């Protein structure tokens, strides 16, 4: 087994654009669930909205990168209002149901045959990243060190993606230690109590839903920069993986979503490498390559179960917070 390349691949995942996208989406989810107590089971929907808004405005309308990103943000704000207006006055479970359904609706709509001219149907869209690549300030040469040696274009995607992650982290950090964050965390604990203290709970919940949704949408943009937009990518599995990354790191923590996403992808890559390696070495002859890819997700599920049992607060979470029956 080639341990060098297995570990090298896993190390590469730590800073891959996909990991950055997951981290960003998980930061959004931490605003929703970790801080405001909103149950969003449709983060994949926000990512799809951002991805398609960016790709369509670029390809169809020829908008420059910054304007296409703005379109992705605006689209997710609208999406958040559509989800929030009817549900945020109701009990928490209604938002959960509506977000699951809405994310699926988005996925079905963009893969509709009738819309193929705009959304690319089930084929999806590609070729929208040219404008972004043109902004690459790093040139063509490969540079870096060890497993992190990439072309200038690859570095550009990574720097952009992690730059957004950094920006989102700073925003969440500043907000959550401010009085705004105090109100939002209070709503997570008991919204009637916060209401009785004169705070417009509905408005705060909407603000939190929009903010986390915008992060989800930007995650969608980062996610597609190195690949094509594929409707199949935005299923409930994606939402589940983002939740895994979030819970892994700790839901109401600043660095939890980032470290959670890194661990998620590094472990996926490691297990995949090991299983394929074992198969090639003839240790697991009964497993096909496809099955090897699936087994790692079984392992992720198993790891999540162990996590919930042994470290329910996540890696960064505060054990004390969970020891209360609140």
């Amino acid at each position, binding site marked *: 087994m080639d341990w060098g390349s297995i570990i090298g691949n896993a190390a590469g995942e730590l800073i891959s654009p996909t990991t950055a996208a997951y981290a960003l989406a998980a930061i959004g989810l931490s605003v929703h669930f970790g801080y405001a107590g909103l149950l969003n089971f449709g983060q994949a929907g926000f990512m799809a909205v951002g991805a398609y808004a960016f790709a369509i405005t670029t390809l169809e309308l020829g908008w420059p990168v910054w304007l296409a990103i703005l379109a992705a943000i605006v689209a997710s704000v609208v999406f958040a209002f559509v989800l929030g207006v009817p549900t945020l006055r109701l009990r928490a479970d209604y938002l959960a149901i509506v977000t699951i359904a809405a994310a699926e609706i988005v996925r079905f709509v963009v893969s509709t045959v009738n819309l193929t001219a705009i959304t690319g149907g089930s084929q999806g869209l590609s070729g929208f990243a040219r404008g972004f690549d043109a902004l690459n300030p790093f040139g063509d040469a490969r540079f870096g060190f060890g497993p992190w040696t990439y072309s200038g274009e690859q570095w550009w995607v990574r720097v952009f993606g992690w730059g957004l992650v950094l920006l989102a982290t700073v*925003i969440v950090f*500043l*907000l959550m230690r*401010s*009085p*705004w*964050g*105090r*109100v939002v*965390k*209070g709503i*997570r*604990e*008991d919204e*009637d*109590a*916060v*209401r*009785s*203290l*004169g*705070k*417009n*709970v509905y408005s705060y919940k909407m*603000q939190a839903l929009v*903010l986390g949704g915008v992060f989800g949408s930007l995650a969608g943009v980062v996610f597609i920069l190195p690949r094509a937009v594929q409707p199949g990518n935005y299923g409930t599995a994606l939402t589940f993986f983002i939740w895994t990354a979030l819970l892994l790191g700790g839901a109401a923590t600043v660095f939890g979503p980032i470290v959670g996403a890194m661990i998620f992808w590094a472990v996926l890559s490691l297990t995949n490498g090991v299983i394929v390696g074992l198969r090639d070495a003839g240790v697991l002859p009964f497993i096909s390559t496809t099955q090897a890819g699936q087994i790692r997700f079984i392992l992720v599920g198993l790891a999540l179960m162990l996590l919930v049992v042994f470290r329910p607060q996540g890696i960064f979470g505060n054990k*004390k*917070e969970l020891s*209360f*029956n*609140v």
Partner: protein
Amino acid sequence: MSDTQLASSPLVTGEIRAGVPKVDPILVADGVTRQFGGLTAVDVEHVEIPRGAITALIGPNGAGKTTFFNLLTGFDKPNTGTWTFEGSNLAGVPAFRVARKGMVRTFQLTKSLGRLTVLENMLLGAKEQPGESMLRALVPALWRSRESQIRERAEELLVRFKLDAKRDDYAASLSGGQRKLLEMARALMSEPTLVMLDEPMAGVNPALTQSLLGHILDLKEQGMTVLFVEHDMHMVRHISDWVIVMAEGRIVAEGPPDRVMSDQAVIDAYLGAHHDTDLGSLTEADRAALRAEAEAELEPGTEEKR
């Protein structure tokens, strides 16, 4: 007891009866009803709460006291009715706006914010915080001075409520009685004009009860109006200036504490709640026996407490 029974009181205009107009009412409710299915939980024709006084709202379990609180504070919607607070209409006004107008309530089932610290709970109660707007929150310079102001006030209140040693603990780690204290202190952070307390003494030990009574009397000293729901008749008699009695959703009597507690309608109301007998069909001897029992209950336990 009977020598303290006056037909009039400085708080009211005219003769004392249910729904009597007050000299200076802070809250006036008219025709407020609330039905749950076939059950009429609240049916208040007219009631006025006197300003600057401590008013107790008493009545048997299920009388509709909490529901009436919920309606007045915007936490529930009535089927009919209007009410005004300091002259401005409050019917249909959402709960958070009611609180902003200076009418702040606590809950029968205490609502402490468990995974916030005691101090954070307190700070959340303060009004007019620029840092509670999302954009300004990003620039600490815009809210720091207000934050240190309210922090100072919070520390003072925590000392007054003997919670200062707990300031950095999660509210979830407090005892039931301490949570009651925290909820009350938190409500005071907003500097309200009317404080509405739903059973502030429930589950609080006798030693704490004494200090809570002191706090409530303090509120009046500071010019606030207090309306509280309570089952402990000793407390009601001890601190309230005015007592309003609810039974089966209606206001059946009101008056100064001594007078109300010897009122026939009140005794009947309390009896009706835990005796299945129809009082109307009883013989005079039965009625006398029941009345004695009720009076004994409404009387603060004279022997054991003194």
